[in-house]
C-alpha cells in the first residue's frame, strides 16, 4: 500500500534519533579537540628524520645518500650532502628539506631508506597561515629522537632497533676480527713488537656514525625486499625483537 515504505523509513530515522541518546553505536561522533580517536600504529602522515642520542643534527641516521630524494614520487625532498673543510663528503645532510605542502604521505622514502633514517610521523594537526616558511620543513624541524619513534611506532621501532643492534654487533665482531687478524699479522711479521693497537683501524668513513652505518648497509647490500616490514605477526616480532634493548646512545660515540 502506498506509504508503507515511507513509514518504514520514518521508523528507521526514529530509531536512530532515539538511539542517539542511549546507544553509542548510534552516536558515533568523536568530539575532536577534546576527544581523539587513537591512531593506529601504522598511521603515517609526514616523514621525519630519526636521530640517535641527544644531539639532534649530529645524531641523524641520515647519510645524505639521496635515495629517498630520487625515489620520492612527488619529489618533495631536497638534500645537499655536507662536506668537510677538505671537500670530502661527511655523510651527513647539510640541507635536508621536505616540502610538506607537496608530500603525499606515500611512505616510499621510508621503504627505500636502507639506513632506517627516515620514518613517518603521526602529527596531523598542522594548519598554517603561511605556506612558504612554515610548510617547508628544514633539517632542524624534521629531526626527532629515536624515543619519539619508539613512542609512535612501538612494534616497528623495536624491530628496527633490533636490526640495527644486530648489524652493529656484527660490525663490531668483524672489526674485532679484523683487528685481531691485523694484530696477529703484525705479531707474526714483527715478533716481539709492541702492543697491538687498542683501537681497530677506522673504516674509510671518518665519523663514528658512518662507522656504525656502514655495517648496516652491509647487512642489507641491495634492499631488494623492503628493509622494514612494519607490522609483522606477533610471532615474528618476538622472534626478531627479543634480545636487544632499544639502543639510545649514538653508535660508536
Amino acid at each position, binding site marked *: 500500500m502506498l506509504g508503507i515504505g515511507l513509514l518504514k523509513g520514518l521508523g528507521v530515522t526514529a530509531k536512530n534519533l532515539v538511539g542517539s541518546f542511549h546507544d553509542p553505536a548510534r552516536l558515533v561522533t568523536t568530539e575532536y579537540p577534546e576527544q581523539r580517536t587513537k591512531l593506529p600504529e601504522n598511521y603515517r602522515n609526514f616523514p621525519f628524520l630519526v636521530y640517535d642520542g641527544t644531539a639532534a643534527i649530529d645524531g641523524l641516521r641520515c647519510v645524505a645518500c639521496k635515495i629517498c630524494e630520487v625515489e620520492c614520487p612527488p619529489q618533495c*625532498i*631536497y638534500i645537499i650532502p655536507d662536506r668537510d673543510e677538505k671537500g670530502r663528503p661527511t655523510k651527513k645532510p647539510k*640541507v635536508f*628539506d621536505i616540502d610538506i605542502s607537496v608530500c603525499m604521505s606515500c611512505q616510499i622514502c621510508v621503504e627505500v631508506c636502507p639506513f632506517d633514517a627516515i620514518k613517518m610521523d603521526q602529527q596531523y594537526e598542522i594548519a598554517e597561515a603561511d605556506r612558504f616558511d612554515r610548510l*617547508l620543513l628544514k633539517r632542524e624541524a624534521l629531526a626527532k629522537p629515536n624515543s619519539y619513534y619508539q613512542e609512535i611506532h612501538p612494534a616497528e621501532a623495536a624491530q628496527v632497533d633490533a636490526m640495527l643492534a644486530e648489524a652493529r654487533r656484527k660490525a663490531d665482531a668483524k672489526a674485532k676480527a679484523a683487528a685481531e687478524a691485523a694484530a696477529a699479522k703484525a705479531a707474526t711479521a714483527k715478533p716481539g713488537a709492541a702492543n697491538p693497537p687498542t683501537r681497530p683501524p677506522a673504516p674509510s668513513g671518518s665519523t663514528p656514525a658512518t662507522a656504525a652505518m656502514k655495517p648496516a648497509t652491509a647487512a642489507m647490500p641491495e634492499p631488494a625486499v623492503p628493509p622494514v616490514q612494519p607490522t609483522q605477526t606477533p610471532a615474528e616480532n618476538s622472534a626478531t625483537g627479543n634480545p636487544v634493548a632499544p639502543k639510545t646512545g649514538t653508535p660508536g660515540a
Partner: protein
Amino acid sequence: MESLEQIRDRLLSRYPGAELSILNNPSPSAQHSLVVGGSAAREIAAFLRDDPALQLDFCSNVTGVDWPDKEIVETTRTTIPDPAGGPPKLVEQKTKRIQPGYLEVVYHLYSMALKQGPVIIRMRTGNRTDQVTLPSLTPVWRSGEFQEREVFDLFGVVFDGHPDLRRILMWDEFKGHPMRKDYVEPDDYEWEPTPHDEVLAKAKAHYPAPAAPAAPGANAK
C-alpha cells in the same frame, strides 16, 4: 579462442588487400597484437565484432602511444682489400638517419558474449606531423567515442569519421598535445623549494644569482 595467427589468416582471406601484421610482445604477458593498416581498418573492426567465432563486441581500452623520431646510427663495416696486398682493411662507416616516428592507437578488444579476449589491434599513423589521420572505430564500438577524443586531445591523432572530435580534457584554445614525448610544459617554477633534475634546471631560471658561493645551501629568502 583462435590464435592471433588464425585470426590474421582469416582476415587476410576475407580482405586480401589488407595490411596486417602481428606484433610480437616479448614480455611474459604474451599479449601479442595485430597491426592493422588504416585503409580497411573499419571493415576489419566490424568483422571482428560480428564474426560469430570472435564476437569481439566489447572494446575495452583505446589508447595512444607516441613513438618519436629516432636517430639511428648505423654502422656498416666494409672490408677494403688493401691495394698494397696486406690483409684487407676493415672500415667502419657510420651513417645517421632519422627513423620517422609515428603515433599508434591501441585497441583492446574483448568478447562479452563469448567471454574471451583480449585481441589487441593497433593502427599507426604515417608520421607525427601531417599524416596523423586514422579511421575512427567509434562507429563500430561506441566506447571509443570519448577515448578517441582523448587520444586526439593528448596525442594529436585525428580520427576520421569520429562523430564529435573535439578536445576533451584540455581547453579548446590549448595548443599542442601534451602526452607526446616531446611536449614541453609551461614554465611555472617561481617557487620550487625541492627541485631536482630537469625541474631544477628549469627552476634555476627563476632563482636569483647566488650572491656569494661561500654560502652553499643557504635557504636565504
